[in-house]
């Protein structure tokens, strides 16, 4: 089992909305791995949530963690 990723908004336009990703140890490593796989992500700002909670620091990832990539939207 790998990580389940949910992507939203501008991030999803780059990565697709849901996908599996090889497990990495923590969110910093995930960010680097994602940016390597999808270089355009380097230019998008997003908040990360792990198992439904937004994170505020590097966070360890369980084998089956669900990670969400949440960019801000401005439209109204």
């Amino acid at each position, binding site marked *: 089992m790998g990580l389940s990723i949910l992507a939203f908004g501008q991030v999803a336009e780059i990565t697709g909305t849901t996908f599996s990703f090889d497990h990495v140890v923590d969110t910093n490593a995930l960010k680097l791995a994602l940016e390597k796989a999808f270089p355009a992500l380097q230019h998008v*700002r997003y908040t990360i949530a792990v198992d*439904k909670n937004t994170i*505020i620091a590097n966070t360890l990832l369980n084998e089956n963690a669900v990670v969400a990539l949440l960019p801000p939207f401005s439209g109204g």
Partner: protein
Amino acid sequence: MRLYILSMTETTRYERQTALKEIGDQGQQQLLQAKVLVIGAGGLGCPVLQYLTAAGVGEIGIADDDVVALNNLHRQILYTEKHVGKLKAEAATDVLQRMNSTVKINQHIVRLDNKNILPIIRLYDVVVDATDNIPARYIVNDACYLLRKPLIYGSILKFEGQLAVFNYNTSITYRDLFPQQPKENEIADCNEAGVIGVLPGIIGSLQAAEAIKIITGIGQVAAGKLITYNMLHNSLYEFNISANLLAASFLPADEKALENADYGEVCDVFSVREIDIASFDEIRNLPGTIVVDVREEYELNETPALESIQMPFSVFDENMALPNSETIVVVCKSGHRSKAAAALLSRKYKNVISLQGGLNNWLTLNKMDHA
């Protein structure tokens, strides 16, 4: 709250919602006495205004300085062709008063900014963010934070929307979710990205529902939660927004700070000074230097021991007492958390610097020196 008996007309008019035992006459009285400010009378603002007016919210403020354009009509469903070219606040008032003449509607025909927003927000109990641009969202958030007003946030992009409630039974604000204001060019807006009219209709309706829940005290309000909706996939997700220390470093300390802040183009927050590896190695063992390590416990074995005060970022306390020093160097793994922590410490201490590139960088360069 002062309660009064509903009039015959009010009883008839609202009987289908007072029939709900959760609302009842008391809930209707609360609605009739509530004051709600809707900032932005566009795609999100229209359904919010319509449903709150219909529900009998006593006083509604409309803050908008824009005029109705023909290409607004596909989603801003309060307006008709005859309103094109007219001020949205006036056109909306015209339609809403015909819908419910008993609601008091205040027009604030002004572009709210950080210098004029506070006196307007003060007049209301609940604020709805139905704006369409990033600086406005941060200004509204920061003003509501200062005045402790419940803020119902909604935003959209193409087929997706976000909903959250801030400053209500929790101190979570928009900055806990997105601490630093991105530059305008980092975010696509509706004008460029396109939007199907029904999407702001759905998100705006959710905002109106949160307003009614807050006013009447029923149900579970999305306080401190981010709800995302995708119209194409019919998917709805809910996330808990964690309190973020970075938010504290960006929120205005007081009303003056809000007025003086630059939301037009907020530069890199971190006006924090950084120190390079060579200079760090020169000063870190000097008697006047304190090193504060903000890494988490599980990261500590990744570098050789360094004389430092441990204060993991997840439990960082900006008011912690530090020994007297000439210089405080804050370090972490990659130099990001240390910058944020240094920004917080700078409020209390002088000469706080952050280690550029973090201990990862320090380790790499020191290994190279030894090789």
